Structures are given as structure tokens and as C-alpha cells.
């Protein structure tokens, strides 16, 4: 029950998905659609697991009032505010008109509606769907534009400073291989920057016959040596991933057992 059932589920699902590619019978293709629907819904619960775990940890930190508990409280307040703005925003927006969609939908797509009744929404007493509508739910849009976006963008933008500092400290042409790495990086940096690329062309390659434009050199570097490296790596990664997949299908690897005891 605890070990064999997960193994059976993984193996049967995996083999069925491989089989539906090679034997695309109606039954297997239908099964694939159902499996994908299951996957999307279970995937949503996986997101819930992540969010719930984060909130649980911060709740415990805030409750114990240990070091940094105020930041944990800030996290929880941020979560609650954004969640309420997004998921309940529709409560505060008057619906434009009562939904009369059932008849319209069944006329416009009768065949699909029979297979997939999801295309017809229920009668709405409030505009729940407007929760994520940026034009209607201005609170949610405001929080996304002025709180979420600047912080997400700035925290990632900090990397610009560190990558520059790392370039200064670590990029040393100590031997031929390091020199090649450094040379390729410099060519790409200068070749992809319009200012250097433009002036190189204007001042050098237009006047000296066999010196190509910096943009062309960069493009050649990306198209040939870079592609050779990446393609070689893709073969390795592809074969390794294929081997790993087969190991999971036959039960030699069981990643679904991780973190849940014996």
C-alpha cells in the first residue's frame, strides 16, 4: 500500500503515456486527456502545498516571537493582503449583467459542451471572475504594479552589480582555455552592444578589408562554436534524462518516495 501502490501508479501512468504515442487508439488518447486534467488539478494542490508550507513556517516564527519575527509577520500580512485583493476582489465589483450564457454556449459549441460541460458557467450572484481582471479589480492591479513588480524586478536587478563584480574578480586569462572563455565573453559583450558594434563597423571594418563586423563575429561565435558545445551537451543531457526516465518507469528510481519516511 505504501510502497507498491505508488510504484504501480507511476509505472502504469508512464507506460500508458508512452503507449498512447505509439498506439494512438481513441481510448488511449481519451485517457491522456483525463490524465492531463488530473495533472493540472493535482499540480494546483502542489502549489497550495508550497504556499501553505511557507505560511506555516512564517506563522510559527511570528507566533514564537523569536529573532526576526516581525519579518515573518510582514510576510503573512503581504500574503493575506494580496490573496484577498485577488481572490475576493470580485465581491466588491458589481456584475455588469446577469449571465445568460448557458443557452449561448450550447448553441455555439454543442459537441464540445457535451464532452466538456466546463464551457458553461453557473448563474453568478457577483462577479467572481473579475478578481483577476486588472481593468475591474483596481486594488489587485495596483498591488501588482506598485508592490509586487518593483520588488521582484529590483531583487533580480541586484544581480547586475554582482555579475560585474564577479567579472572583475574571476575572469582571468590564466591559460588558453580560460583565455578562450574570456575572449568569447568579451566578443559577445561588445558585439551585442549597439554602441561598440556600430563604432567598430564605422571606424574599422568598413575601412579594413578582411576585418568583419563585430555583430557578424558574435553571430558566428553563437551559431558555430557555441552551437557545437550546446549540441554536444544536449546529447549528453538527453541520453541521461532518457536513462533516468526509464529507471523511474521500471522502479529503479522512486523520487515520489522522498521525504515521507519508510
Amino acid at each position, binding site marked *: 500500500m505504501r510502497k507498491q501502490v505508488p510504484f504501480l501508479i507511476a509505472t502504469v501512468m508512464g507506460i500508458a503515456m508512452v503507449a498512447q504515442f505509439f498506439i494512438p487508439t481513441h481510448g488511449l488518447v481519451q485517457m491522456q486527456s483525463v490524465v492531463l486534467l488530473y495533472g493540472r*488539478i493535482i499540480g494546483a494542490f502542489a502549489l497550495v502545498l508550497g504556499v501553505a508550507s511557507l505560511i506555516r513556517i512564517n506563522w510559527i516564527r511570528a507566533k514564537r516571537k523569536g529573532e526576526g519575527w516581525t519579518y515573518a509577520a510582514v510576510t503573512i500580512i503581504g500574503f493575506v493582503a494580496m490573496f484577498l485583493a485577488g481572490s475576493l476582489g470580485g465581491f466588491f465589483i458589481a456584475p455588469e449583467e446577469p449571465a445568460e450564457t448557458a443557452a449561448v454556449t450550447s448553441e455555439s459549441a454543442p459537441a464540445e459542451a457535451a464532452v466538456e460541460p466546463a464551457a458553461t458557467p453557473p448563474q453568478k450572484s457577483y462577479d467572481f*471572475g473579475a478578481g483577476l481582471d486588472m481593468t475591474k479589480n483596481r486594488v489587485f492591479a495596483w498591488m501588482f504594479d506598485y*508592490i509586487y513588480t518593483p520588488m521582484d524586478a529590483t531583487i533580480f536587478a541586484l544581480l547586475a552589480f554582482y555579475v560585474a563584480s564577479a567579472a572583475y574578480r574571476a575572469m582571468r586569462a590564466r591559460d588558453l582555455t580560460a583565455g578562450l572563455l574570456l575572449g568569447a565573453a568579451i566578443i559577445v559583450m561588445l558585439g551585442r552592444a549597439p554602441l561598440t558594434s556600430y563604432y567598430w563597423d564605422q571606424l574599422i571594418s568598413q575601412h579594413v578589408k578582411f576585418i568583419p563586423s563585430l555583430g557578424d563575429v558574435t553571430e558566428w561565435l553563437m551559431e558555430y562554436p557555441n552551437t557545437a558545445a550546446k549540441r554536444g551537451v544536449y546529447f549528453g543531457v538527453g541520453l541521461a534524462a532518457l536513462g533516468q526516465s526509464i529507471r523511474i518507469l521500471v522502479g529503479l528510481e522512486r523520487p515520489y518516495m522522498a521525504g515521507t519516511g519508510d
Partner: protein
Amino acid sequence: MSTPELVGTWIAALLTFCALSFLYKDNPFYKFAEALFVGVSAGYGAAYVVHQVFYQDVIIPLSVCFQVAGQEPSAILQVINRIVPCILGVMILSRFIPSIGWMSRWPLAFIIGYGTGFNVVYIVQTFLLPQIYGMITPLVEIVRPGEAPYEGLTWGGVMVLNTVSNLVLFVGVLSVIAYFFFSKAHTGSYGKFTRFGVWMLMLGFGATYGNTVMARMSLLIGRIQFLLYDWIEGAIGLSLPG
């Protein structure tokens, strides 16, 4: 600029400075911004999951199925197809309770199983076969009469640069693969061949590094554009040159 936009721009600018303050050293302003970001991001994700998955994929279809249950036999199947994944989904949450944590293996096995099944064909179709096909092309390119004129260097009717480039790509791929083949010692002429693979890898990594620098600078440019145009010009009202 309307009042909410004005207030928002000021708050966004202050949060931007809070995050940037980390460059000096770790400090309470950065920690505040970081904690708020984590919370807001989780709240945003949760709101989307509620709307785009539970409401769209579960609640609406179930309510419709219940409405037409009497007339439409397939509705029962639809109900089952929504309830079962929800039960499996709830089983994932059992990881919070160690004594029943094993229950989360079923839904994870389901996701990993079908994902792996898809992956088998996906890997072959995406990374292996097309990349092999990409290598099986003529290496020597010849100027043919009647085709568009070739302006580059030719030697005996052979397009020199194209041919050399094709050779670099072809030999490069083989040498990179040879470098990762550890069952044979990298010595002698084979060692020299794998050395060429290392050069290709270094050129590839260098190109990636150069692009990485470019990407990181672009992100900061976005923030500078915000501070200059939205905050200084838009919210404060100063006019900038340039």
C-alpha cells in the same frame, strides 16, 4: 498622474531603494522588502490558483455537471474526473502530518509517472533526433551557377567560410561528445581531439557568460528607467535631460 498612481509610484520607488540598499550591506530595509515580496508573491500565486484552477477547472464544471446530471449520462464521469484529482490533491497535503505523510506518494507518483512517460518521447523528439538531423547536412558548400551570388571568399568553387564553419560545428559536436566519454583515457591523438572539445565548451560558456552579463544589465536598466521616468519625471515632476 492620478492619486493612486502617484502614491503607488512613491511606494514602488521606496521599495526599490529598500531592495537596492542590500548593495551596501544587509539591513532591516532590505529584509522588510524581501519579507513583503515573499508574502505578496505567495498571495498572488494563491489568488491565481483559486481563480484559474479551482474555480475554472473544478467548481464551474462540477456545478454544471450537477445541473445536468439527470439528462446527461456523461456528467457522472465528469464529476468523477474532478473529484478524484481533488482527493489526490488533498493527499499531497498529508506531507504536513508525518504519520500519514506516505499518502502524498500516490499523487506524486501519478504526476511523476505521467510526466516521465511524456518525457521519454519528448526527449527523443526534442533533444536527440532533431539535433542529430541538424548534423547530417553537407559540410562542403559549393557555389552553384544560377543561385544567388556569393560574396565571400571562394577556393575552387568552395565557399571557404561556410565550409570551415560547418566543419567547426561538426567536428566540434563530435569532440564535445568525446570529451564527455570517460571510458577511454584522454591521451594521445584522442586526447588532442577531446582538447578541441574543451575549447568549444569554453567558447560556448564564454558566450553564455557574455549573454548573462547582458541580461543582468537589462534588468537593472528596467529599474533605472522606472526611477528616472516614472518616479523623478512622473511623480516628483522634475524634467530630465536626454
